[in-house]
């Protein structure tokens, strides 16, 4: 793994960061409040980032159905060519690509309404093929030459620019992507949060940390829990009763939607289990179940956001794609190029964006993987800049030294 304790900042240095425009780390106030933040303004732009940890197999999400090599090299794990009569077949998206059938019910309707887009051949220049190294690199969002040892993530920098109180991570602990100067609260939503302590005890607990390095963390943590518990309590009491329904990730996603609609502008969540080295499955099986869960969750999130859906952008990303050839165990190993998903009520969806190459064995990177033609920072820099109405210098703060891809009109 990448050890965050690695002091020498291997291969990359802090000095390089300073040279590369590190002044941006000082959060110039003038860049803040680029976004309206009145509490229940349905038009204020919102962002949810979903990280698939483990390396999701790009060729199973966005199926290169017209590639003969794809079907030939994946005797057990290829998804069948589009065929309306076959429920196990992938769903036609365009002349080259189709969608995994497990995402058909939940996400195909969004594609048809132009609310879902994909960028294939996406990813990083990291060639370690290590989950942990590549995840950390993506979460930091710096270029290849810089590493702060996991102490500054791009969502934290983004939230610092918008409004330090606008972000939240729906996780039990704070991932690298949310770490940094802006204090981002974290709260998993597997269950409905309840207020843990009364006012007096909260105050005593806060006092314990007066002057401690964790003072702000403790104070904000107690307050976040109180606020969110109150919000859910109100919600359940409300006569109109938008009670949270569904199960598992779907239920969590509804709670996320509720908080993004009512209180937060930027959210993060991660979902695991994508490292399918053995028995990956095809139209059904391990990967199909994971995709089905994720798709249903995203669909529930949209329902819950309601009138705020048009102002919402959801980004789904993963550390890398997987080997184009099936391995010896009906699975796939760590690869390179992946696929980015974008969902939202007013995006330019219903199409595949970014640079592409014909999918064929002869076009593989290192004769093994999808190549990376759309570097994730330049894609995200461009898409987030447009959606969150950020100027060039703000994007430079979030992804220093990147060149936003102007052609990426999502």
């Amino acid at each position, binding site marked *: *793994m990448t*050890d*965050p*304790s*690695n*002091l020498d900042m*291997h*291969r990359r240095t802090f000095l390089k960061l300073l040279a590369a425009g590190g002044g941006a780390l000082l959060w110039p106030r003038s860049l803040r409040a680029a976004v309206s933040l009145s509490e229940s303004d349905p038009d204020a732009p919102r962002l949810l980032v979903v990280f698939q*940890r*483990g390396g999701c197999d790009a060729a199973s999400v966005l199926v290169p159905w017209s590639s003969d090599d794809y079907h030939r090299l994946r005797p057990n794990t290829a998804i069948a060519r589009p065929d309306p009569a076959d429920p196990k077949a992938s769903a036609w998206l365009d002349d080259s690509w189709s969608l995994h059938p497990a995402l058909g019910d939940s996400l195909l309707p969004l594609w048809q309404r132009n609310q879902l887009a994909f960028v294939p051949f996406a990813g990083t220049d990291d*060639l*370690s*093929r*290590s*989950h*942990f*190294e590549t995840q950390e690199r993506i979460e930091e969002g710096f270029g290849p030459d810089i590493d702060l*040892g996991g*102490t500054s993530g791009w969502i934290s920098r983004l939230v610092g620019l918008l409004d330090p109180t606008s972000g939240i991570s729906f*996780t*039990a*602990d*704070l991932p690298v992507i949310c*770490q940094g100067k802006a*204090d981002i*609260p*974290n*709260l*998993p939503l597997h269950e409905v949060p309840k207020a*843990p*302590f009364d006012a007096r*005890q909260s105050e*005593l*607990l806060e*006092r*314990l*940390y*007066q*002057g*401690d390095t*964790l003072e702000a*963390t*403790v104070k*904000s*943590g*107690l307050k*976040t*829990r109180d606020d969110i518990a109150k919000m859910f309590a109100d919600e359940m009491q409300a006569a109109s009763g938008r009670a949270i329904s569904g199960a598992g990730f779907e239920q969590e996603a509804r709670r996320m939607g509720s908080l993004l609609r009512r209180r937060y502008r930027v959210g993060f969540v991660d979902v*695991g*289990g994508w*490292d399918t*080295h*053995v028995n990956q499955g095809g139209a059904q099986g391990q990967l199909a179940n994971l995709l089905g869960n994720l798709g249903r969750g995203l669909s529930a999130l949209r329902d819950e956001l309601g009138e705020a859906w048009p102002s919402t952008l959801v980004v789904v990303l993963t550390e890398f794609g997987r080997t184009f050839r099936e*391995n*010896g*165990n009906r*699975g796939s*190993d*760590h690869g390179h190029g992946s696929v980015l998903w974008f969902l939202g009520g007013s995006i330019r969806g219903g199409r595949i964006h970014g640079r592409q190459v014909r999918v064929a064995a002869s076009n593989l990177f*290192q004769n093994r993987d999808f190549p990376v033609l759309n570097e994730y920072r330049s894609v995200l820099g461009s898409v987030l800049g447009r959606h969150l109405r950020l100027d060039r210098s703000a994007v430079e703060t979030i992804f220093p030294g990147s060149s936003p891809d102007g052609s990426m009109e999502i």
Partner: protein
Amino acid sequence: MTYSALRSCLALGLASALPSVAFPHGVDLVWLDRTGMGADGTSAAQLESLGEDRFLDLQLGSTHPLPSQAQMEIDSLSIQRWDALALMHHRDSLAKIVDSAVGDSAKTVARKALGDWKNGIFAQTVERHLLRDLYSPDGLRERMVWFWGNHFSVHSAKDDEQILLADYEERALRPHALGRFRDLVMATLTHPAMLVYLDNAQNAAGHVNENYARELLELHTLGVDGGYSQQDVQSLAKVLTGVGVDWRRGPDPERPPPPGTIRDGGFEFNPRRHDTASVVLLGTRIQGGEFEEVRAAVDLLCRNPSTARHVSLRIATCFLGVPPPPDLVDRMAKTFRKTDGDISAVLRTFFRSKESHAPGALKDPHRFVVGALRQAYEGRIVTNLKPVSNWINQLGEPLYGRLTPDGYPLDQQGWSSEGQMVKRFEVARAIGSGPGGLFEIAQGTPSRGGFPLFQRPFFWTWREPVLGANTRSVLDQAKSPQEWNLLWMSSPEAMRD
């Protein structure tokens, strides 16, 4: 001068200039905490009488018995008598009942019996681990068993891992916890739990699976920046073909295994599944052959200077809870190389360093919970470990519960989020409010009393004199013993080493 400033002086080697109040009775509680699962009255008195060097000798020496009641609890567990093979055979017989059951309801009952049995075996595995953490006099050994279980992490939810982990811990990790690193690598490499978890059980000539080979290089030995390439991953994966599992008990006289087969407790090296081509690994040619290829490759990995550095960095980060000074890691790595990976020698270098006296960092959830209980019930043996594992699980660090093979974070940064802190306060309240079911003999029977009491001689002799002013004044506000417990366990002093 504040307490932490005093401590920083010590870490800089200015100990002689310090007034003795920083270390009541000559005991540096932070250092003592680091050596195990949490300081308590017994270990503090021992350190006071022996001094650090002799205390360390004792911790790194031969093992000492558990209190007899704790040992009896462990002896009563069936995992003490069943090895991995026996457990797998029992699993098979329960699975056969599922297969032969007629009708939906009979199948459901049989399936539940199998599931309950597997859950029970894993619960015993956790129970044994916790009993040793709570009561073993060999705190450093127990801490290293946890450390290696995290370094060579295996996730309990995959396949049959629930019933393999007891044997993995007992035969692969524990005997080598303070021994030679190479032995530890070989022990994990030849244990079914690891081979199943990282898919090497499926890695065979013509069906190569590089999952384990990659993590062996990246996580277990050289480290991600250790100087290996994708080609090295593929070479190592090839060397590891045929290294897998076989659950048959004894040789089958009808079909004797091919020459070169090695079988041991579920582990199997199968020469028919092994690719005998020679490869180049880390610039060195590995002559094609049978299992000797694997031994040669492991030698190569363990003697690589990157491994000495990577393992030393991990150990130092675990004990300090923060990124360690590079100079300390260099010294530990030098010991590692000089002693051919003697873990005890590396630990000695760490615990004799001035840096081992540096200010304490936030404990990980496991040590937070276990350390609190060691003080609250000093020596009184918990008979129901379920609440203990629940508290640890709630804080996000269940034993053998890490989904990914990288193990839990060693740096306190991984445990210092807002959500984590508030959850810790809640767990502190749960631990401090009463014994709950801790002393139940059987589920549902009334508990035999017992209240979590922190204000014991240990607290007044060693802990109280070094409390910060904030903590003292807040503790004075407590309106009940339960609230005092909540506030004490939530304090920065109790949260940190």
